Structures are given as C-alpha cells and as structure tokens.
C-alpha cells in the first residue's frame, strides 16, 4: 500500500541522454516536491508544486523540468544529462499546513 512511489528505482544512463522519473502519491496531498540527495547525503529542494503553483529553486539548471499531469503525479524530466547529475532523487508529498512530508524511496541515477 505504497503512499509515494517513484519509478524507476535505479537509472543508469550515458551523458547527454534525456530521462524521466515518475512520481505518484495516493495520499490525496495538495503539494508535491522533488529533492536531490548528493553523495554527502545533503538534501536539496529542487521543485515544489502546490495547486498548480510551481516553485523552482533558482540554483537548479533549466535542464531539469517538472511536469504535473494531475494532483497525484509530479514527474521529473532531465535533458542532456551530465556527470554531476548522479545522485539520488526523492519525491515527497504533504498536505497543507503543519503536516510532515511523505517521501518515496528514491531513484538512484548514475551517469556513465
């Protein structure tokens, strides 16, 4: 009964390719997020999507683009992958207000 699910779990690809990571939540939450966790385990917010309002972390390269077909889905598309994109990407969701976030188990992206 997965709450926040991401696919694929592992993604190995070559530099220059374009790839997408899918995220779905079945919790009925209003807000979804994408985080990047680097090799030092530091979590960096990339995007947040709340009621069709997209908040972008200005430090994220424009090769990264979120796409939300509906409230339960927030996919991440990455163009022209670079070596530095290798990381674990986490999707999360939360209701509005003072409630905690629920995280998926991550997508491990490796660039060859």
């Amino acid at each position, binding site marked *: 009964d997965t709450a926040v699910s991401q696919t694929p779990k592992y993604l190995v690809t070559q530099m220059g390719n374009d790839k997408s990571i899918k995220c779905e939540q079945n919790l009925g939450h209003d807000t979804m997020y994408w985080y990047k966790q680097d090799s030092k*385990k530091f*979590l960096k917010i990339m995007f*947040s999507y709340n009621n069709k309002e997209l*908040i972008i972390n200005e430090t994220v390269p424009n090769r990264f683009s979120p796409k939300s077909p509906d409230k339960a889905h927030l996919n991440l598309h990455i163009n022209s992958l670079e070596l530095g994109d290798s990381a674990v990407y*986490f999707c999360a969701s939360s209701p*509005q207000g*003072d409630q*905690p976030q629920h995280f998926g*188990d991550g997508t491990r992206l490796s660039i060859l």
Partner: protein
Amino acid sequence: AQSVAQPEDQVNVAEGNPLTVKCTYSVSGNPYLFWYVQYPNRGLQFLLKYITGDNLVKGSYGFEAEFNKSQTSFHLKKPSALVSDSALYFCAVRDAAGGSYIPTFGRGTSLIVHP
C-alpha cells in the same frame, strides 16, 4: 529566512545508553519543527514534530524531542539506544508565519549505535 543546523556529522553511542542528536534553528516567526530518519536505500520517514503546546514531544520508535525556545533548539533523544536505531537523522524547520511552505532541512547526523 529560515535555517537549521545539525552541528554533529556523526554521533556514536553504545547500545542501551541514552542518545541525543542536536538541532538548532532560526526562523522569523514561530517554528514548525520536524525530525525524520533515513535508513539505507530508503526515503526519509517522519519521526515526530513540534507545532505548539507541550515542549516535550513523543514520536515513533521511542524517540522524543524537546523544544527549547530560548535556545532555539529541538534536540532528538532516546533513553536507551538500540543497534537498529543506527541511521541518518534529519531535522527540518518551517516558519509558521507564512512565506514559503517548503521546510528547510539540516545536513543530517549519522547515528551509530555500537553493540
């Protein structure tokens, strides 16, 4: 602006001993504070939160945290550590006064419980 600091990269404790993982924060208004745990190859899991009320908050797996407004701290504690508590712990803060609804996470503290 909101920020959170976890001053220790790693905490080592013997099984059965009490443990503390430190967190300090900075917000303009009142804080919403959260602790999460991350096990290897898993996403973050919510442990406990402080929104308002009693300064001592109890959460999952026997963990608790104490909100201290004067010291702007929200340290995570457990009276008796288990080897299975070994994981990465994140503190997060959000300003209840509004602005961004996106919480800010600390850099994480690796807890190692020795048998």
